[in-house]
């Protein structure tokens, strides 16, 4: 490195002069979005507060009534235990909204364009951002599971089951992360993105198997719940929680046990993730392309 020559386009480590690598670019963006999450109370707290309120209020207010409804189908299962996996899914849902909000903020404050002018790989940029959000969702689900256990819920499958629930939560969140990013690009407006995503949150949660067994709910709700992704996420997480097949909308017996309740839900979620992910990726690449619009 002491004489200028053609080789000087390589740094001391032999990497290209720019020093950008794909993984390096992912890491840079992962760090930035984690830092922003810690700085922004909305991101960390708000998406946790609502699920915590639900967890505490529902178990305390509806615990007795709902508990007996649960016990008709699942004898011996407390409402705390029944509700906790649903709250984990709620956290994933609420937290996924902030992904789109982050993107809108970036568009509004010019960082989106600023990043496009850097030599960073664009796929790596969005991978890093999404990874930071999924990491945060995992941490938030762990917090919720801990709180649930304090309130008396029991994860029958123990630590492995808890990790499984976190994994289900992450798989579940991906489609909503994609959805909120799509909303962000289409509306390019923070309020619209938050309102649209939040408006969807409650119907999705209530019209599913999240809070009460489907059998106790009116027919129209049962019909909607069959096509509601929340049902698949909650039933998969709940099967792990209770160590038995409680999947209400798909009945299979490939494995003969808990996995019969987990796998179909996961497959549906993965399918949904791929479809919505593809839509979000194509919207994102259109928004970041230099083609004249």
């Amino acid at each position, binding site marked *: *490195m*002491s*004489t*200028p*020559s*053609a*080789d*000087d*386009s*390589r*740094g*001391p480590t032999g990497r*290209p*002069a*720019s*020093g*950008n690598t794909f993984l*390096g*670019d992912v890491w*840079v963006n992962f*760090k*930035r979005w984690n*830092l*922003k999450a810690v*700085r*922004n109370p909305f991101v960390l707290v708000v998406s946790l507060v609502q699920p915590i309120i639900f967890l505490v209020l529902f178990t305390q207010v509806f615990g007795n009534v709902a508990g007996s409804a649960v016990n008709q189908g699942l004898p011996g299962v407390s409402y705390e235990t029944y509700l906790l996996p649903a709250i984990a899914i709620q956290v994933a849902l609420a937290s996924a909204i902030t992904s789109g909000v982050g993107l809108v903020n970036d568009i509004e*404050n*010019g*960082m989106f*364009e*600023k*990043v*496009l*002018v*850097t*030599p*960073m790989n664009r796929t790596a940029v969005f991978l890093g951002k999404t990874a930071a959000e999924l990491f945060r969702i995992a941490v938030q689900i762990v917090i919720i599971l801990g709180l649930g256990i304090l309130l008396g819920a029991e994860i029958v499958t123990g630590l492995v089951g808890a990790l499984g629930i976190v994994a289900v939560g992450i798989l579940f969140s991906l489609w909503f992360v994609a959805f909120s990013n799509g909303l962000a690009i289409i509306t390019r407006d923070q309020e619209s993105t938050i309102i649209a995503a939040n408006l969807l949150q409650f119907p999705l949660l209530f019209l599913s198997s999240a809070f009460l067994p489907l059998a106790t709910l009116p027919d129209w709700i049962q019909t909607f719940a069959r096509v509601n992704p929340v049902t698949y996420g909650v039933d998969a997480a709940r099967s792990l929680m209770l160590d038995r097949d409680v999947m209400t909308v798909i009945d299979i017996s490939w494995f003969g046990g808990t996995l019969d309740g987990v796998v179909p839900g996961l497959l549906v979620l993965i399918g949904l993730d791929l479809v919505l992910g593809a839509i979000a990726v194509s919207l994102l690449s259109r928004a970041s392309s*230099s*083609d*004249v*619009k």
Partner: protein
Amino acid sequence: MAKSDPEGVTDGANRSRIDDGSHGEELRADGPATAIDVDGLELVYSDGTAAVRGIDMAIPEGEFFGFLGPNGAGKTTTIKVFATLLSPTAGTVSVNGFDVRSESRKVRQSIGYMAQETSIDPELTAAENIRFACEAYGVSRGKRAARVSELLDLVDLADVADKRAEEFSGGMKKRLDAATALVHRPPLVFLDEPTTGLDPKARNRLWEYFRRINDLGTTIFLTTQYLEEADQLCERLAVILDGEIVADGSPADLKHEVGGEVLEVELEGGPAVRNRAATLAREFDAFATASVTETEAGISVTAETARQHGTDLLVALRDAELTVTGFNIRAPTLDDVFLAITGEELDTDEGEVPR
């Protein structure tokens, strides 16, 4: 120390770079180096708006270049093509020797770009914003800390390095934005209206800073609303109007093209008086090629012979029973150039600029 900068953008094939630790001299085998080379650039938006209609330009390395034009003339569109944010509809553009279409990533590595809207992350501190830019541009780990503190010093933000950018004033945010565009010591920097909306003090400070990096060898491509800014900073200017370049040259050349000196006459009375005075001035024999405009307080006459025959005009005005309350003969400014070329005045008000 003849040490090459690993961050210096060198494509190896036809250029090498000596960096003395600051902004180095570019050495190129093939004659005088061109930072930006534009041939027949056109850009048509999908709604059919032709924002740029056939631009040719060549900007040599090290030049402080100013790009002027009224709002909507195509300045920002052009700069976005150079920064690879928009693909040209037709024509070729090469930036630092790289084609903006086929080698866009190499272009991005080799330029700094400061957008018209201040672009910083308000949730991060000043130092974190610069550090993120260092990482985004691949500044090697060992150099980042020094680069961050050097740039914070350069833009006078060292005192507030650990404060979040959301607390900053408009001028501080702009300076931080400018610093982030320079982390990789690009040989070419694009500044899209960098001082719009700043108070004069903040503006002067940025000017000083742009001059400093230009002195270090950085080519600067600046668009601006403020003609005084272009006059102060730029070695060469181009004026764009409706997507076409209608004039270019050094500020002195352009002023010379206005054709002589400017005589401003203040008159007592309303628009009717000014109109009569303007008619008189146009018919005035000594000012055969004069251009006459009505101003707020009177009339303005631009003519080669304004200095010699200005008093004659004043006499003629008095004979026509118009009351002259003041007059002034001066050399033309870029405002006059702009007025002559575009037929409209750039809004040069301090502070608020309607967009």
